[in-house]
């Protein structure tokens, strides 16, 4: 799998309340959630994001509430992959469970700039910053998590009997 797009960069502790404010949690509609994604810290995001773009955060990305609406809103806005130096744990498992690609890479998260063009090769475990001509490697997910990713989500993996034993 390859992800490629323009970077939208944010700082430390991007919380789920700013990814999707609770006032919009009275809907489960992905498109509607996406239309409010990041609005409290970056009102322009929804206007400038293009399909395939990449979101970059710093430490503790996705902290706060357990709302799965947060990774759903990011994914439905067109973001193909989130790179951060670290992820809050509930966001991390929610992203994996719903099939939003995420990568922990402190170095890449720090050096990539807003607006850079970045390509991620998940099979090779490489992030290429095409704007800065730099490469970063990241380790593959554990086999257990790869089962979820290869089924495009946790419930699919269960249905396919990958966790029967």
């Amino acid at each position: 799998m390859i992800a490629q797009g323009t970077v939208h960069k944010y700082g430390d502790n991007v919380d789920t309340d700013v990814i999707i404010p609770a006032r919009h949690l009275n809907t489960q509609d992905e498109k509607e959630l996406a239309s409010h994604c990041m609005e409290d810290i970056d009102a322009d995001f929804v206007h400038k994001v293009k399909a395939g773009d990449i979101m970059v955060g710093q430490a503790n990305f996705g902290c706060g509430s357990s709302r799965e609406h947060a990774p759903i809103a990011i994914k439905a806005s067109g973001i193909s992959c989130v790179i951060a130096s670290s992820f809050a744990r509930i966001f991390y498992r929610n992203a994996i469970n719903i099939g939003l690609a995420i990568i922990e890479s402190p170095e890449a998260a720090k050096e990539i700039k807003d607006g850079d063009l970045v390509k991620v090769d998940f099979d090779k475990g490489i992030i290429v910053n095409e704007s800065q001509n730099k490469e970063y490697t990241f380790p593959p997910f554990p086999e257990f998590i790869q089962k979820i990713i290869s089924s495009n989500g946790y419930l699919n993996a269960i249905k396919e009997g990958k966790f029967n034993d």
Partner: protein
Amino acid sequence: MGMTMSQKILAAHAGLERVEPGQLIMANLDMVLGNDITTPVAINEFEKHDFDKVFHKDKISIVLDHFTPNKDIKAATQSKQCRCFAKDQAITNFYDVGQMGVEHSLLPEKGIVTCGDLVIGADSHTCTYGALGAFSTGVGSTDMAAGMATGRAWFKVPSAIKFNLTGKLNKDISGKDVILHIISKIGVDGALYRSMEFVGDGIQNLTMDDRFCIANMAIEAGAKNGIFPVDEQTLAYVEGRGERTPAIFTADEDAVYDEVYDIDLASIEHTVAFPHLPENGKTPSEWGDIVIDQVYIGSCTNGRYSDMEVAANILKGRHIAENIRCIVIPATQQIYKDCIKNGLVDIFIDAGCIFSTPTCGPCLGGHMGILAEGERCVGTSNRNFVGRMGHPKSEVYLASPQVAAASAIAGKLATPESVKGE
């Protein structure tokens, strides 16, 4: 190498003799929880993947507490979806308006969770039940759907940080000050992916409500769970609250911890987390003059009876400052009734507060106390992120019920000592 409390509970529920930090396991769940925001997403996933029946009708709890009594048509539609699902699946622990309370106060109160349980909840503050010596953690809606379908969840076994609590809290200092102090010390990602295990002689001096409050905010330090050992107070609390049998898990003598913090409870002062992170804890000498517009006393962190009682003791015979709205919300119907029975409601209303039916409402900026641009609220809740209680340019100051009540009287951030005898 020995195991921590958390690791022992996970091992027992995974049918393993031992587990190691970092190990990925599948474990059997005692309880799967959701609310009116997260459950609809879980139901959609459950149905989309053609699961027919929940794994156990008694081991699922659905509590309609966030946008209820429903704030708008969309919220009402989500509640209706939960109601229909609960009826179809004959869910035993379904709590609708009239019976519901703020979920993390309700489940322990009703005896639905007990010591030694493994609990997941599609709500980040599910970590609250660690006060009972349970391993409980917040997850998302997909995990809730999988939990409802299979009775299992995947876990990465956490390592742990030990907090050795000694001594006794000073008057009007509570569990809220302890956890805000700890989060200020270690930061909002200080316990990321890890357990916070609270031990030491000081535990016996903390009430169950203090412990619920401390465990509740473990997530605000990024923790997977927060957990207390089971003692006589815990067993006295769970006794007679239901048919569940408590199980006691104790950390091994040679359990390994990533870090150990020694905390003298007597050294803790009133602590308030300033905007916009729970780690921005400040003690009174650092507060300055913070003029406020609203006070909110309630939530899964501080909506229990003892919280109502300490606030009422400060507000008794007094009146809140001009131009302040003070919103008091008991967490459950039982607490609501106890407040009526013991005259607390009269005290609140005579002081100029409002006293509401249980709801999570204002804590997450849902309803019942949204802030306008530029407004400031002292809240006993758990998060003060940008826009948490309303406008992105509003501010939330996280505090104990003592400080919140005193601030309502003073019209600015204040200690209970400073408003006495005014």
